[in-house]
């Protein structure tokens, strides 16, 4: 009874604002709508058939997988390390925390531009440094090179994602008994062992949130990619979100774009169901 009372308003809100629009836009994936016209034809599964032979779709799937894999590892690990280093270290660590948090406060529009200037071949930061320290053979146009464009964007994205991971781990660390972290701290040799075998397992609820968020953001990531490469050069950094945008709003294949969105949604749904199955043990652990 109470469960119903608590759930009624949020769930109905969610149904109206999120699910209803989602379902109604899935409808377009069975049409050839161009986005502008009043009229369109019902084409059945044509849009889904088309994906089978679409090189761009295949490419976008591969890039999305790579991005997701990086999302599971990179921001999570670095975010955890920073959180451990900053957890409860007095007033100075508060200042540090804020500085580490700054990246997510800055607008992506501006961040994307600065990362372009970091990767720029001529006056870009990385290349300036490489030149100064005599490693000019490694200088390159990172974003213009199809071999490095995607990785470069993922690095920039991870940079911002780290801040999110750090915040969640910091909150998660509040649930770890103080004696544990302190003791591990003093006993230097055992520190990493304690982190691995004691603190990390205790951070499981936080890790679930961090990984879920990281994966989700990677699957949806669009803004920073759009700012930095628009999926280029020649689609080498396209992901599914970018492809969906291109099909729907650049080429005006709204029907096909919606179909890509359906696939993106289904993939992620499978991922999350699988993921939560894995985490099912959580409640038992804490009860």
């Amino acid at each position: 009874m109470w469960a119903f009372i608590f759930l009624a308003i949020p769930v109905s809100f969610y149904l109206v604002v999120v699910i209803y629009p989602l379902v109604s836009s899935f409808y377009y994936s069975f049409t050839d709508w161009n986005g502008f016209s009043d009229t369109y034809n019902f084409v059945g599964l044509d849009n889904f058939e088309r994906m089978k032979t679409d090189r761009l779709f295949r490419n976008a799937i591969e890039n999305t997988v790579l991005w997701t894999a990086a999302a599971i590892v990179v921001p999570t690990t670095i975010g955890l390390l920073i959180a451990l280093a900053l957890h409860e270290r007095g007033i100075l660590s508060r200042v540090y925390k804020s500085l580490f948090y700054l990246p997510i406060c800055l607008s992506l529009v501006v961040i994307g531009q600065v990362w372009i200037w970091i990767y720029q071949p001529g006056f870009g930061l990385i290349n300036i440094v490489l030149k100064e320290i005599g490693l000019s053979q490694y200088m390159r146009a990172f974003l213009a090179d199809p071999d490095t464009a995607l990785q470069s964007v993922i690095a920039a994205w991870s940079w911002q994602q780290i801040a999110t991971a750090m915040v969640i781990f910091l909150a998660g660390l509040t649930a770890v008994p103080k004696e544990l972290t302190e003791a591990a701290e003093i006993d230097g040799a055992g520190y990493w062992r304690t982190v691995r075998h004691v603190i990390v397992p205790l951070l499981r609820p936080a890790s679930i949130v961090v990984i879920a968020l990281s994966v989700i953001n990677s699957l949806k990531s669009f803004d920073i990619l759009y700012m930095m490469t628009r999926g280029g050069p020649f689609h080498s950094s396209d992901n599914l979100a970018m492809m969906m945008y291109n099909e729907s709003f650049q080429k005006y294949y709204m029907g096909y774009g919606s179909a890509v969105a359906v696939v993106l949604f289904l993939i992620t749904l499978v991922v999350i169901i699988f993921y939560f199955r894995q985490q099912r043990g959580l409640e038992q652990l804490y009860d």
Partner: protein
Amino acid sequence: MSKRRIFHLLILAVIVLSTNAVLVGAQSEVSIVHYYSDALGQATMAGILEGFNAANPEYAVVDNSAGHEDFKTQILVTIAGNNPPDIFSYWAGARTQFIVDAERLTPLDDWWTETGLDEVVPAGVKAAGTHNGHVYNVPMNVHVVGFFYNPKVMEAAGITEMPATWDEFLTVCEALKASGVAPIALGSRNRWPAQYWFDYTVSRTAGPEYRTKLMNGEAKYSDPEVQVAMEAWKQLTDAGYFAADANAYDWDEAANMVANGDAAMTLMGTWITGLWNANGLEPITDYDFFPFPVIDPEIPVVVHGSIDGWVIPTNAKNPDGAKALLAWMLTPEVQQTWALGQGALAASTAIDQTAYNPVMAKAAAYLATVDFLSGYDLSTTPPMAEGGLDMFAMFMNDPAGYVDYLAETQLVFDDVFGG
């Protein structure tokens, strides 16, 4: 409270309400959405709209601007959702054609004639906004694409005459290269700046008629004509005339290379003058213009560029207000303010031509003598343009492989135009 007082109050209330209603009724709202969202464009446009409000107190303009891509999304969603603005800016050419074909734009032929625009707008400019025989896109300004160069760099390489033919152009490039600067800067990270190379090489070697066919799907990317054009472009990349890593830069960075003297010239639209003027460069002394050279003297010369115009959607709530505003946009005063503010050429020739700076005057003079054709992404249908733009960027990355890229582009073509 006595009944009389209540009665008086009621009367008062009715009077207040009705005067309010009259006031509200007298002013009809005209909503406008445009993509002039940078500080300068926004300010100039706001001034123009204020002028309209002052001259036409019966209308109240709701001004709205968004950056390029946000703008495109916003327009699509508001049209699809049946609440579009009364008037919005749009690129003349294939993009307007697309919305015309979706039957979402109002034809403006009668309004055009009534306003007497045939007398002030050149036929070629009008043609760019005419689709299926009707005027849909009313031009606001014209940008022409040509070479913008740094005169000091040219001088240092001993070049005094700007090239008019392809051979002269090659000689100039060679001299520049010998003097130690990159002859040509190109920033094709966002692909479109590379398109003008394709535009000009095709229309200068195969002719404007062929190019129009190619854009409309009546000629193919596998044609020998296209290969000839690509070979002309490749001649320049093979000789090392382009600054390195074109795909790593945006067009404004290429413009900076020219301004800083690291490169001599860039093939770009007149909007580049807006950027340079804002950065304190002086026309003629710091930058100058020459048109794309002639490759085949037998072929009629055209100029490529883009036209920004205004369109009125079919489901506009206030089409009369939109037309009144549109007429205001085409008055000589507004046209002049706008052109000078934007570094663009006015669509109307009724403005004071001497107001242009000397470089813009050159561009205007050139436009007056030749036919106008829109640039690639405004000339061919949007999905085809996506395929073509990819090809240009791939070409800049690896010119030697262009035959393969053309084959890929032809696949896109087959898909779009039904092979």
